[in-house]
């Protein structure tokens, strides 16, 4: 019953965004999910042409590391190698990375699907890099910047949000990082311990929302 109401509410939310309104900035955006909420389902096209769906693609995993990122943002680029490392470390332990590009290529041409295919090939991404063309996934999660990470764990009721925020505390210099937030969160989940902190912030690029 609750889930039905949630679905209706989400459907209403999406319907609202389907109307020809202009999303102008942060204050007008929905809040998205909080830690402890069920992670919204998504079905998005991967760079290899396949469809990646949270509930199906990751059905046999313990969780997932959802990273909203893109091709053009210098902060996303700074973090690319660290995103690859996260997947290499935690993918085999049941927490693979899925990278989602939410940017409108009309606003930011470098973030086109073709650009994604090229980038994934260049960097040798072993994880899905999917295109949130409608931007509904970014809106449902409440992603506001790139990179913006949501760590999920799989439970009986579905995927649950365990951590929201930054990859670590130093985008400029990986050697000077003192808190590896995402890695710590995933390690805590694997060990059955409490995730702490569950929410952090970071400087990043705004998501390039559709102009109309």
């Amino acid at each position: 019953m609750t889930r039905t109401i949630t679905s209706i509410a989400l459907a209403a939310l999406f319907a609202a965004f389907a109307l020809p309104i202009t999303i102008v900035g942060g204050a007008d955006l929905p809040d998205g999910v909080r830690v402890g909420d069920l992670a919204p389902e998504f079905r998005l096209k991967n760079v290899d042409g396949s469809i990646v769906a949270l509930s199906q693609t990751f059905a046999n995993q313990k969780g997932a590391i959802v990273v909203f990122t893109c091709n053009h943002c210098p902060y996303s680029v700074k973090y690319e190698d660290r995103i690859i490392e996260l997947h290499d470390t935690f993918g085999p332990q049941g927490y693979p990375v899925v990278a989602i590009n939410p940017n409108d290529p009309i606003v930011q041409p470098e973030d086109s699907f073709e650009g994604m295919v090229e980038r994934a090939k260049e960097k040798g991404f072993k994880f899905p890099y999917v295109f949130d063309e409608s931007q509904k996934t970014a809106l449902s999660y409440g992603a506001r910047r790139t990179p913006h990470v949501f760590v999920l764990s799989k439970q009986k009721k579905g995927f649950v949000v365990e951590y929201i925020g930054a990859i670590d505390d130093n985008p400029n210099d990986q050697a000077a990082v003192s808190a590896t937030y995402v890695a710590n969160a995933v390690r805590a989940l694997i060990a059955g311990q409490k995730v702490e902190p569950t929410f952090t912030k970071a400087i990043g690029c705004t998501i390039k929302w559709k102009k109309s």
Partner: protein
Amino acid sequence: MAPGMLSASILVILLASGVVRAAVTPVTIQELKQRYQQGGDTVYVVNFWATWCRPCVKELPHFDSLQRAHQAMRPVRVLLVSVDDPKDREKVAKFLAARSYAPQSYIVSDGNPSKWIDAVDTTWSGAIPATLFVRNNGKHRRFVEEEFSYQHLEQTFLRFCKDTQ
């Protein structure tokens, strides 16, 4: 030649020769807050930007124009606050020197942004560009996490001035 023009010419020559660099003062968020929380009825327009952020760089001239267009009519102070890596201060200074913007420029010297983003505004996700309008010692504030056209910036500014008189 008028003395003003003469000194302006000298400044242009000095800037072009690289003798004078636009000042970029390192600042902690606490220091920045103290500044506008003791600002009385001056309207502070605090723009957070970085040299690597293209939408930020695109809108910087609008903040320069806002300061120039309105400073004679009302107490207004635009502050350009770079969130570049504190180690890139020289790069930021060079970038600004090439553009001769009127507003005062700062670079955030604090470490981990997760510790200071909320101190600016709790609704800030950390995405840039972002701009804080603040007045009356911090009693009135409006935070905007988006890119401005000049028209939209001026409208937002004038509305804020009117609402906080």
